[in-house]
């Protein structure tokens, strides 16, 4: 065959091969080159490359020791990586997010990873993800998602990233990461293999699995963890699933959400940041403000019922653009612990859900509304 005339498919395969070859020697020096190539390929396939999001100037950045100082962190979530050599699109997307975050100036205080780094919880997928995330310049905090967990019940994830439940203090704010994707055993009675269990959980619309929950042991841990903090300590909680009940059939849901909310009720300022839903999603229940994170891999449609009033849906994504509706983002934390939540959509203008919007129950600082709603 004349190599001058290659089919689109052949060209794609060659591009994918060379991308994967580049990943084999991924280190700090070659990282920029590989990720630039990833961006280049995205641009070549008709994707409009948008500039990295503008940095937000934060007052008092250098007085880190002072209590209740505003700060900013960035997030990446739901990359759903397969092992190398299978799916280059999801890998390119995560590289793009890392590139976005690394080019922030000034750098965020830390980067939060929102779970579902892997698609099927395989060691090769998690290793691959860890290898890419190693390139993040700022300190990184990890959260687990159901796709990371249900092949080996978190064994590999814990080996790579440590405990899934932990807390820390940062500039006067108390931050907590939970594992909210605990499912009741549906697999033993059915005699499922670990991979069958994983595949079941990996299907968003698979009705065989159980609802997500935080579970009794973690709820107890949370109570103890918060016991020494006064009511005016700002609290930020990270959970993979939304810590409320939105749509059970897709596990946009936490079964014991009310119990967790009750524990958080006494605090004046509580923000919950969650993954799993792959979309702009906003809610407020009493004192608790909820914000979703974008996925780097693909956007989910909105739930067909039960949408929270404060949610302004994002325009229905363009199926012809693999990056549309995907992205990363950042969170500006104010001294009182409330936040501006920035959705850095790769193919669109970024959208900010401001603290003012949340405080005013949606009457002030309203972000632009969609003209193409989800079906």
């Amino acid at each position, binding site marked *: 065959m004349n190599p001058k005339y290659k089919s689109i498919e052949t060209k794609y395969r060659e591009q994918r091969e060379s991308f994967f070859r580049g990943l084999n020697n991924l280190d700090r020096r070659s990282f920029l080159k590989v990720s630039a190539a990833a961006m280049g390929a995205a641009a070549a396939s008709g994707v409009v490359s948008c500039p990295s999001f503008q940095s937000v100037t934060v007052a008092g950045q250098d007085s880190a020791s002072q209590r209740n100082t505003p700060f900013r962190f960035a997030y990446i979530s739901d990359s759903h990586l397969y092992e190398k050599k299978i799916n280059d699109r999801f890998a390119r997307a995560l590289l793009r997010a890392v590139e976005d975050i690394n080019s922030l100036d000034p750098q965020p205080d830390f980067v939060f990873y929102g779970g579902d780094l892997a698609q099927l919880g395989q060691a090769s997928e998690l290793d691959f993800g860890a290898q890419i995330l190693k390139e993040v310049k700022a300190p990184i905090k990890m959260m687990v998602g159901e796709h990371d967990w249900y092949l080996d019940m978190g064994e590999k994830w814990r080996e790579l990233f440590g405990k899934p439940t932990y807390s820390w203090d940062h500039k006067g704010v108390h931050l907590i990461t939970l594992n909210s994707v605990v499912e009741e055993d549906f697999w033993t009675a059915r005699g499922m293999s670990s991979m069958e269990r994983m595949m079941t959980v990996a*299907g968003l619309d698979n009705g065989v699995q159980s609802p997500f929950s935080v579970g009794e042991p973690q709820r107890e841990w949370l109570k103890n963890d918060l016991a020494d903090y006064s009511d005016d300590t700002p609290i930020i909680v990270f959970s993979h699933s939304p810590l409320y009940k939105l749509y059970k*059939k897709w596990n946009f849901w936490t079964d014991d959400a009310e119990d967790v909310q009750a524990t958080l009720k006494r605090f004046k300022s509580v923000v919950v940041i969650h993954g799993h839903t792959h979309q702009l999603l906003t809610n407020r229940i009493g004192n608790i403000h909820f914000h979703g994170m974008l996925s780097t891999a693909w956007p989910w449609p909105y739930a067909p019922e039960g949408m929270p009033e404060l949610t302004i849906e994002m325009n229905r994504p363009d199926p012809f653009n693999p990056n549309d509706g995907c992205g990363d983002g950042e969170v500006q934390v104010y001294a009182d612990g409330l936040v501006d939540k920035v959705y850095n959509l790769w193919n669109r203008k970024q959208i900010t859900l401001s603290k003012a919007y949340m405080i005013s129950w949606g009457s002030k600082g309203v972000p632009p509304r969609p003209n193409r709603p989800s079906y």
Partner: protein
Amino acid sequence: MRKISTVAHVRFVMLCAVCALMAVMLMSCRDEAEVTTCDGTGKAMVAEDATGQELADSLMAQWKRDHPDADWVEQEKERHELKPPADNSALLKGGQSEGHIYGQPTERDILLWGRETEKFVVEGSRIFHSADLLGSTVAVSCDMCHPHASNTHPETYPKFQTQLGRVVLLRDMIHWCIEQPVRGKHLEPDDPAMRALEAYIMAQRSGTPMNYGKH
């Protein structure tokens, strides 16, 4: 696609039972006898003095062991919730049915229509949810962007698809998705898998008014 339906299999196994019974009757000196089922692949041990029903049951049980996914329709429905087909039981009522052949379906007819229609759609659900059945080279299946076939809006076709610059049908978009994000095997418009996918997507939007041309 499964070419032999479960109903056909049941009939087949019952026929086997009759064959086996005759075989056992000939072998009177043993307590148990091994019989080969009529498909030439399955083997079962049957009691020498088994009655016809017992024999049929044991052969059916053996066939089920040999075919663990025989209940694939029920299994798939449990995994992925499906909107049921329309209820046609009202057709059993009405005074004009006598003397009007098309106008007098039986309960059995109605059961058959429902089951066969649902099976067609369930096959679509199976393919929709499987990167393997779609032949994806990047391990992507339809449900990864369209849980319960949401955001597929079959009721809006035909419409002008801006990105393609022409008017398309739902089938064209299924085709586009299989070729692009799924990177799966090419399906002709009349391929059984394409027909099943189309059936599943349309079935999931049951009750939505048709609204062609809507963006």
